[in-house]
């Protein structure tokens, strides 16, 4: 990393750093992003992380195989804590996906041009996160082989799913979310696949990218249809950012358990989802900047703006914690107060206070400019936020179930090694898919950058969207 670039990062100001580096041309953007994927191949960091991720994917395969042979008794889930790690993971991964949709859909509609450099890998992150999440409820079923009974279809048993159940809503919400995210990602990918097709040197590359590009030739009529459809898909994805995690929250809120039966859950879950999702996007951005040399396109300005969005949602999360405590006090409902006291001083206190420290206290350092401009600092804080958000979901899932109304149904939850193997394995699957994505696909949408260059030349002011 050249020292000069480091310096200009440190003396960063919102006004003088534009979204795109100066002196970029259509040619240089195309070349550096296409070559970027090949340059990645030779890097030791890339090979080592791919190897580590592959090892973790192997661990996931072992854990899932063992689960299918032995049943869910291998996990710590047991009555009353029937949900345990798989559902914690589900809620956490779905939440992480939300930032990708927020960046690609909501910021597109709001004409936030700075998203152009980060939307592609944020969308890829969403897809992989939804994949990780969707696995969880399925393998957590007692009989995963009949998971398709969730899907309403005419069958010889004459049986239909229970549509009044939030778990069914969840199936539809996650299914729709995954499908729309995939379509959105695919539509954006086609023009860049054509670029890769035309630049591919190997026969395999030409066929592979050519098959995805499907004969894209950049016709003005196709571009015009693309613009129309892309905005509609963004508009359709926008309510999903809010609805998917709201419906996940309803899995909890529509029950009658003391810590779960609360109206605040849907907005609280959505804020937490965007918070943890932006933390994950920031982690990936910092890695792409530092390890894979995409610092020219993912600038300090992107990092700053994402930190602002993340910190704002973090404050909403903090506010939700306060309101939750207030409502419990205001209700004067003994079981609710019991759960709250258990959080503050009881068995769940270590987890609760870790959540507060990880999600509320430590991240405030990012309001300082030097902290935002230090990649290591941003990376570490974002990892801490992700850990904090995972613990928050753990607190919700486990402490709600283990403190029911009757003392006779109280029991502590003890995770097993297989629980941790599954958690680690999913992180491996996530990293593995993203590393393959970085290796074979354009991490940054080239056509959007070309378009930004064209527009900034045509209208010099339009690149200054943020100021």
């Amino acid at each position, binding site marked *: 990393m050249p020292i000069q670039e480091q310096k200009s990062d440190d003396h960063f100001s919102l006004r003088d750093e534009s979204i795109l580096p100066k002196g970029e041309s259509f040619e240089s953007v195309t070349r550096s992003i296409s070559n970027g994927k090949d340059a990645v191949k030779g890097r030791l960091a890339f090979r080592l992380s791919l190897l580590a991720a592959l090892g973790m994917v192997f661990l996931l395969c072992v854990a899932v195989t063992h689960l299918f042979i032995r049943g869910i008794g291998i996990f710590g889930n047991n009555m009353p804590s029937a949900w345990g790690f798989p559902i914690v993971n589900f809620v956490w991964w779905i939440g992480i996906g939300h930032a990708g949709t927020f960046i690609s859909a909501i910021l597109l509609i709001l004409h936030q041009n700075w998203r152009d450099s980060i939307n592609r890998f944020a969308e890829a992150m969403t897809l992989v996160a939804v994949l990780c999440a969707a696995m969880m409820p399925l393998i957590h079923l007692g009989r995963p082989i009949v998971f398709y009974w969730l899907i309403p279809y005419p069958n010889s048993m004459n049986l239909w*799913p229970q549509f009044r159940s939030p778990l069914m809503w969840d199936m539809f919400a996650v299914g729709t979310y995954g499908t729309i995210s995939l379509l959105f990602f695919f539509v954006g990918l086609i023009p860049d696949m054509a670029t890769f097709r035309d630049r591919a040197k190997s026969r395999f590359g030409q066929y592979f990218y050519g098959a995805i590009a499907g004969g894209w030739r950049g016709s003005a009529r196709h571009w015009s249809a693309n613009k129309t459809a892309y905005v509609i898909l963004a508009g359709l994805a926008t309510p999903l950012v809010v609805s998917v995690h709201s419906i996940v929250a309803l899995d909890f809120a529509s029950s009658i358990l003391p810590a779960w039966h609360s109206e605040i859950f849907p907005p609280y879950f959505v804020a937490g989802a965007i918070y943890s999702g932006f933390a994950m996007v920031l982690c990936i951005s910092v890695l792409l900047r530092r390890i894979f040399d995409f610092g020219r396109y993912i600038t300090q300005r992107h990092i700053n703006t994402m930190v602002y969005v993340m910190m704002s949602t973090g404050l909403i999360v903090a506010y939700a914690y306060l309101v939750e405590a207030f409502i419990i006090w205001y209700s004067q409902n003994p079981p609710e107060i019991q759960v709250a006291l258990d959080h503050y001083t009881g068995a769940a206190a270590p987890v609760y206070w870790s959540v507060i420290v990880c999600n509320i206290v430590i991240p405030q350092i990012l309001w300082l400019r030097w902290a935002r401009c230090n990649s290591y600092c941003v990376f570490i804080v974002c990892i801490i936020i992700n850990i904090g958000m995972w613990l928050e979901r753990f607190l919700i899932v486990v402490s709600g179930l283990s403190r029911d109304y009757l003392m006779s149904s109280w029991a502590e939850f003890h995770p097993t090694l297989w629980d941790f193997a599954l958690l680690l394995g999913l992180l491996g699957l996530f990293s593995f898919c993203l590393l393959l994505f970085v290796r074979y696909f354009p991490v940054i949408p080239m056509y959007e950058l070309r378009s930004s260059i064209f527009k900034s030349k045509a209208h010099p002011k339009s690149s200054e969207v943020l100021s």
Partner: protein
Amino acid sequence: MKEQDPNLYGLMAEFATPESLVESARKIALAGYKRFDAYSPFAIDELDEILHCENSWIPRLALAGGLSGAAFGFVLQHYAAAVWYPQIVAGKPFDSIPAFVPITFEMAILGAGLSCFAALMFAYRYPHPYHPVFNVERFSLASQTGFFLAIEADDPLFDSVQTKALLDEMSSEAVYEIPK
């Protein structure tokens, strides 16, 4: 009209900048040509008007898809919960309409998204692996840095000599014949 070479798809001009492509496309439209297309590595808003791109059918189709999705979602739940498998759960009525809202909503989004996507793929004629324009060697730049304009031979005004002369006098870098 002169006899045309049956193996000629049309003529293609290459431009160095998006501005010269737009300017030439405008001139060709003014000259009365109908069957021509512009190719660029990113969307250029000015070309929509020149080429009369009309996409209002895509949002309409998406709306229709969304409404059908919502109707399908609701009717599915009504039939499943109240007609085919009526079952009292927690004392709720068979048609528990508030509980049917989330799935109806999700199906609306799914229907709209899928039909919007299908409409776009139809507009692209996706997948369309072969197209005569790919026969021009330089055309591989159309997805990277090049700007091209192709006039098809079946345009009523097309004449291989005069059209070539017209393309030559514009600010094009080169003019190519497109074999079929």
